């Protein structure tokens, strides 16, 4: 029985450590956010003319096929991003007339895709863009299952398939340049800056022109806050936005499970060994009594 107790105490101690580090982990991730401000894009749909300039610039910048000239935004038709296009413009007829909306990766502050990635191929950079790294990815597509916006796209007809998604032109941003779509937007619907600046700018626009805007910045709180912020003249439901997205970051959904792992890993073996010793002893006793 002494082994039992020792094991139990050992387990208890280790569990304490495990629980302790668990808390530490969560604390450090919050801290990181404060050190460096993420970059963000502000998209103002009241300015967007639906010219698809961003689609062309994006295709050019990332070596993707040119956008299909036949396939233009029309109200009632939903165009989706796919393995050949990382951003699309859709048109919606709303209570305030036709409104265009640009769709692409939202670059969540705490992205579900990168929390899901077991190789860190999907990666939230310190600068803010969520990037995908070819040499690490094993193509499991768990990022696609996890993303609440269905953003990562997979090349199903390739023997060496890649994941395609907007990376906020990370290579350009690192060099101090603007993302291709922001630079190429002739209507000035896209603005690039730090997330704080973009939220301030969005709020200013709403305050200056309260009649023109619906009083909500999509992306400020959604999915724990995202790196692309949207302004709209109408409620976001009318623009096909996923308004069921929760305000909590998505990785929170699995945090509880993951934090229980170290405790189980330490407690379980000790308990099992304890039961083994206990039942073994009892059996032996019984055998002896029988004899």
């Amino acid at each position, binding site marked *: 029985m002494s082994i039992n107790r020792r094991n139990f105490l050992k387990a208890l101690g280790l569990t304490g450590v495990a629980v302790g580090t668990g808390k530490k982990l969560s604390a450090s991730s919050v801290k990181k956010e404060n050190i460096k401000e993420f970059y963000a894009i502000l998209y103002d749909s009241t300015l967007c003319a639906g010219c698809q300039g961003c689609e062309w610039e994006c295709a050019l910048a990332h070596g993707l096929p040119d956008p299909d000239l036949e396939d233009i935004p029309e109200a009632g038709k939903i165009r*989706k991003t*796919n*393995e050949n296009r990382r951003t699309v413009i859709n048109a919606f007829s709303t209570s305030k007339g036709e409104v265009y909306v640009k769709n692409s990766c939202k670059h969540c502050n705490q992205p*579900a895709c*990168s*929390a*899901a*990635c*077991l*190789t*860190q*191929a999907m990666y939230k950079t310190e600068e803010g863009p969520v990037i995908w790294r070819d*040499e*690490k*990815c*094993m*193509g*499991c*597509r*768990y990022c*696609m*299952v*996890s993303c*609440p916006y*269905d953003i990562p*796209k*997979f*090349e*199903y*007809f*390739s*023997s*060496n*398939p890649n994941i395609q998604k907007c990376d906020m032109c990370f290579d350009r941003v690192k060099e101090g340049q603007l993302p291709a779509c922001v630079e190429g937007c002739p209507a000035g619907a896209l603005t690039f800056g730090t997330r704080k600046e973009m939220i301030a700018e969005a709020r200013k626009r709403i305050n200056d022109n309260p009649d023109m805007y619906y009083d909500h910045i999509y992306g400020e709180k959604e999915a724990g806050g995202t790196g692309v912020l949207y302004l709209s003249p109408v409620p976001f439901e009318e623009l096909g936005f*996923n308004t*069921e*997205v*929760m305000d909590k970051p*998505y*990785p929170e*959904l*699995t945090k*509880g*499970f*993951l934090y229980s*792992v170290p405790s*189980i*890993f330490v407690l*379980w*073996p000790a308990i*099992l*060994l304890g*039961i*083994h010793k206990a*039942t*073994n002893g*009892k*059996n032996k006793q019984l055998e002896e009594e029988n004899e």
Partner: protein
Amino acid sequence: MSNSDIVLNRENDRSSVWNFLVREFKPKGKLFTPFNIISIPVIIIGIILIVIRFAKGLGAVTNLTQETPWGLWIGFDVVTGVAFAGGAYVITFMVYILNLKKYHTIVRVTVLNGFLAYVFYAGALLLDLGKPWNVINPIIGNSFGVSSVLFLVAWHFLLYMIAELIEFSPAIAEWLGARKARKILSGMTLGAVILGITLSTLHQSGLGALYLMAKEKIHPLWYSEFIPILFFVSSIFAGLSMVIFEGSISFKVFSDQISEKNHKSHHDIIHGLAKICTITLFVYFFLQVLAFVHGKNYEYLNTRMGHWYLVEMIGFVLLPMTLFFYSYRKRNLLLIKIAAIVTMVGIIINRLNVTVIGYNWDSVQHYYPTWKEIVVTLTIIFIEIWIFRWIINRMPVLRDAPSWAKDK
């Protein structure tokens, strides 16, 4: 054995080992059995399809889309297959931890089944990976995605396969006549069992936890924060039903290998397992009700998916629970086997409801597997059965261990 004998044995060792292996690798038994006639063509077509899949990409063989990235190969092969393999950790828990000696005779065959299931069904994961050559990244690489549930599941699969191999290894040692190795390997059993049960607890529930982040994509009747617990509890009766089902087939097919004594004890074992199935099914049903009430899902009940949910809960949880209970009380073996089959169908339905049927249930183009995906799945199952049969016919799994290996 005298000293001179050992020396003599050593000299002959190399050639005799070779001869032994050549002899053992030759097929035993008839080639044209009904099982072979069905399985061989399926396996051949399946292998061709696998080649096409790797040459032309997943889209050439599967119906997967950008909206439904995981289909039959994950939902059935991996998620359901692993649930059925749960019997190994439950039986080893009963035998080695609770010291219920009654179940000792089925430990080996259950562990073998579990091991093969992991090798093949977790192996099926490789077919589904876009870049399977990068599968080593989370294992050796500097890119540990520790925040990922899949990272945990992948590591657990790997470690659990090793643990099960260790648990099974004494049988291999007995087959090869390696006495010293057998002694060392049997000494590792308890450690492997404890590790194995711990790993199983975590990755059986982990398979459910994989879907936690797909909150809005899974039908609310099947999504709840309880998924991990539900997956874990259901893996107990899923695994045991598989043990009952597989056991009754093995006892017919390989009846010549089973001693008189074990034949008799088998009824007793099945009877005991039925009792455990009743209890765990009841706990599972209770948890399902809890999840239902907690999720405030009443409004969904009178929809198409709601009816389907009721079919699952009444027809494949309550019904087999009642069947198990009744057949346990009446000691009706046939009814126990029927209950096991109903339970297994229920597990397949449940896992597919979470992973495939209830996933993007409201999407316009819902995913259906292609015939090719089904053939590849069958190929994996058939190859596993071939290997299983090959091992049963050679190693002391169902039949008694050689006399030198008897535990004192």
